[in-house]
């Protein structure tokens, strides 16, 4: 006689268990935070004091070590937001909704850093704080998409309806990502084209590339650590609400 065994949860749904997520993230979070701090620190000191100045832009080029990681994370964060939205719409993954809500403000903050540092770089280099260039405008649109998502998920009395509406907006907004990426190719822009590509060798001096690599990886780990900490808090807050509501219902029944 064969004993009946409960089916093993599918790989993705294993992580839908909030308890499992809390246990796993408790282990991962210190590594993400420490790695992010150390690598960003090394990259910033290297970029500020040891990397060479650009022959044309002078020391203003050092803004790159903050601007490029922020730009990368503004786009990558939105991609993660859209991915969570797709998972939420297709599989109704409970953590995906919370992750999308928690990624939104962090991504918006990095998009704001990208825009502000770009503006501070543009003033000494181009002579203007802002130009309605295709790259700059498409990143500004990305920032507004983040703000729209933040507002939309909080605009409904029912959180589930907010999650659905936010997920649809996030998926529609994905169209902005290739526009950002290829804006410098499709249009004649003031913004420089990509210096680092997947297919070719970087067109950047190696002494500038290393600190950029450090800050980019450090910022990425830092972004992941912030989102993980926010997601852990959101999961615990949800559990607190559920427990308090259960207690209130119990007290009502007794009365």
């Amino acid at each position, binding site marked *: 006689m064969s004993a009946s065994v409960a089916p093993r949860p599918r790989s993705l749904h294993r992580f839908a268990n909030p308890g499992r997520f809390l246990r796993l993230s408790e282990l991962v979070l210190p590594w993400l*935070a420490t790695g992010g701090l150390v690598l960003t620190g090394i990259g*910033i000191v290297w970029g*500020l004091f040891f990397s060479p100045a650009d022959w044309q832009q*002078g*020391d*203003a080029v*050092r*803004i790159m070590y*903050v*601007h490029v990681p*922020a730009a990368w994370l503004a786009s990558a964060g939105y991609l993660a937001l859209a991915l969570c939205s797709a998972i939420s719409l297709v599989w109704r993954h409970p953590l995906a909704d919370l992750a999308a809500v928690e990624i939104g*403000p*962090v991504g918006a*903050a*990095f998009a*704001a*850093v990208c825009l*502000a*540092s770009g503006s*501070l*770089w543009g*003033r*000494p280099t181009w002579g203007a704080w802002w130009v309605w260039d295709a790259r700059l405008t498409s990143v500004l649109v990305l920032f507004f998409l983040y703000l729209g998502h933040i507002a939309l998920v909080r605009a409904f009395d029912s959180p589930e309806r907010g999650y659905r509406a936010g997920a649809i907006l996030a998926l529609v907004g994905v169209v902005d990502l290739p526009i950002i990426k290829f804006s410098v190719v499709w249009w004649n822009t003031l913004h420089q084209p990509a210096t680092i590509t997947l297919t070719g060798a970087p067109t950047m001096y190696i002494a500038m590339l290393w600190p950029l690599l450090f800050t980019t990886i450090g*910022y990425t780990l*830092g*972004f992941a*650590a*912030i989102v993980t*900490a*926010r997601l*852990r*808090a959101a999961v*615990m*807050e949800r*559990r*607190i609400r559920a*427990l*308090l509501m259960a*207690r209130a219902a119990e007290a009502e029944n007794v009365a």
Partner: protein
Amino acid sequence: MTQLPYVAGAYALGLLIPGAFAIAAWARMRTAARRLAAIDPRARRPRR
């Protein structure tokens, strides 16, 4: 270096904004963990 104010401004924003988010996230997580431990019977059980 004439570009120093621009470089300093960009680094200040690039470190302060993510730093503020990191501190806020950590504080929120600590508060939630403390509140949950106070009301959740499972949180009080020793881990095996």
